[in-house]
């Protein structure tokens, strides 16, 4: 197996799908001549031409909506948001058009479109550029939401997203773009809606996704040296949500912790906790706890930023709190 950076894995997925299907095109700010704000799309303009790698002006609602219209009549757009923060001005297009057109038309129209870009905190980019949109989009029936944590999942999930008949919210991560990992050779597809048990453990179950996975795995290593063995489950897809491996693990551990980067109010973690208390009430030996981002807009200061999202240390404390019951 080869090792690829996360951004290279994404690029390979886009290129392979554009090669396979002439209806796939890429549109977004700086995706072409600039070679991608985060270099995900480097080289694609030269390879596929300006008709299929389309530099858009700063008009997120306009080009998101344009993609939706194109998807309704047979194209398969990949719409890049430079960051998901900028999707807020296109929220109406995703909420009211992409997610609803199939229902409103009685099933006559589908919307096979991928919206992708980096999500969540980057590095000291301040309050307006450091937001996690997981919960906001996962709330909406009619869209699928995925958040790959590894290069292999980034490639496999993006290929599946491009082939999906529904709108897919594809949450990447600026802090993960440079991370390397093994990616299988040849055609590599990861199905949407299947979570992944990435670490075995019988003491406690930790559920996470996206950029929190490295912090959770580091915490699990630390706890492992003390004889506390954590099972770690990477959700990968936030809608639909596959909690079967979580239920199986909790049947063994009786204790669970959910780790999310985003704000604590509501959210995907809260959804996981709700389902766990209903499905695993008899097996649980402690309340399910969450380690989340702080309930505040992101401060610019580096020290305060570090304190505002979960870290390996806060995850270790979270597991200990679950075990203390």
């Amino acid at each position: 197996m080869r090792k690829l950076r996360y951004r290279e894995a994404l690029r390979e997925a886009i290129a392979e799908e554009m090669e396979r299907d002439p209806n796939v095109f890429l549109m977004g700010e700086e995706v072409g001549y600039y070679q991608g704000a985060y270099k995900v799309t480097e080289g694609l303009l030269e390879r596929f031409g300006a008709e299929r790698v389309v530099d858009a002006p700063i008009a997120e609602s306009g080009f998101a909506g344009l993609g939706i219209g194109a998807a309704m009549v047979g194209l398969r757009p990949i719409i890049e948001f430079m960051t998901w923060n900028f999707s807020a001005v296109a929220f109406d297009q995703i909420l009211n058009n992409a997610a609803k057109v199939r229902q409103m038309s009685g099933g006559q129209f589908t919307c096979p479109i991928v919206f992708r870009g980096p999500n969540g905190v980057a590095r000291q980019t301040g309050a307006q550029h450091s937001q996690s949109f997981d919960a906001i989009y996962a709330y909406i029936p009619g869209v699928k939401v995925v958040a790959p944590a590894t290069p292999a999942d980034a490639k496999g999930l993006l290929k599946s997203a491009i082939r999906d008949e529904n709108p897919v919210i594809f949450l990447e991560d600026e802090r993960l773009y440079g991370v390397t990992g093994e990616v299988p050779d040849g055609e590599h597809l990861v199905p949407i809606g299947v979570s992944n048990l990435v670490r075995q453990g019988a003491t406690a179950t930790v559920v996470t996704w996206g950029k929190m996975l490295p912090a959770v795995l580091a915490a699990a290593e630390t706890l492992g040296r003390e004889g506390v063995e954590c099972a770690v489950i990477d959700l990968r897809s936030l809608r639909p949500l596959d909690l079967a491996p979580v239920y199986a693990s909790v049947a063994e551990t009786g204790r669970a912790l959910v780790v999310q980067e985003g704000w604590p109010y509501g959210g995907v973690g809260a959804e996981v906790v709700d389902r766990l208390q209903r499905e695993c009430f008899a097996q649980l030996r402690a309340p399910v706890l969450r380690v989340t981002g702080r309930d505040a807009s992101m401060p610019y200061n580096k020290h305060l930023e570090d304190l505002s999202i979960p870290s390996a240390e806060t995850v270790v404390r979270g597991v200990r709190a679950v075990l203390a019951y």
Partner: protein
Amino acid sequence: MASEVSDELGALHRQMVLIRRFEEAAAKAYSQGKIGGFLHLYIGQEASAVGALAALRETDYVVGTYRDHGIGLAKGMTPRACMAELFGKVTGCSKGLGGSMHYFDADKRMLGGYGIVGGHVPLAAGVAFKAKYKNTGEVTVCFLGDGAVSIGDFHEALSLAALWKLPLVTIVENNEYSMGTPLSRTMSVPDSSQKALAYGMARDRFHAHDVLEVKARVGEAVKRARESSLPTLIEIQTYRYRGHSMSDPGKYRSAEEIEARKKDDCVLRAEAALRAQGRDDAYFAALEAEIEAIVEDAVRFADESAEPGEELIEAYTYA
């Protein structure tokens, strides 16, 4: 023998009468509690959709607002499917899941009525983008109201359509009121087609009194889109006789104003032209009887159709 011109005018007049009688029947059904939610009638504006869509081929696309009954019928949707949708029945065009504001017909290339003002204009640009991307020669027509000219999506869509030279005809149906607020209080200029200037886009502006003129003028924009892949912004000046929706008390305009506007009525004008060309009372009586039967059939069909089952609530959430 009727001339070719009057044959065409006769067909367009018939469509306008159908829309008007359909809308009158919808209003009646609404007052009887058979239609719920919002109901935005097209009465008074018929020449706009009928004339504009007469300039299209069947393979061309149309995207509309929530005032979409006239657009749907003019694009060839059946009165039965349209009325049943208003009644929320499973035989409706969207199986009763859409309602008055969300008419769709994939076969007729009616890509929907949309309820968020201006939010559909980028979609229409995307449909036009597909035609250019695949080089199909199809044209997309997008209708919106004068109230949508102030919202960002309208401008973003026009900006992109002009930048990328998309075969899109955007028609602002200026019926003078954004719900209950006159244009003079929502826009700094009286002519919304001026918005095209900043985008370097072709524009046109005219009244919807004469349905044949609407067809001819929109036809020029359609030709520009089809042959040169260039967008056009058109303002069609029109007027709705009924309220914004059925719940509109209409306190923002006078009865005199409405009566004065009815003197320019597009249906009566077409009728007068047809009479001048030799159509007689018997022709119009027969036409009214035929349309009445179609609309009565649509209402009966809607009334007798089944409600959608509970299994449809989530059935179309995902493909």
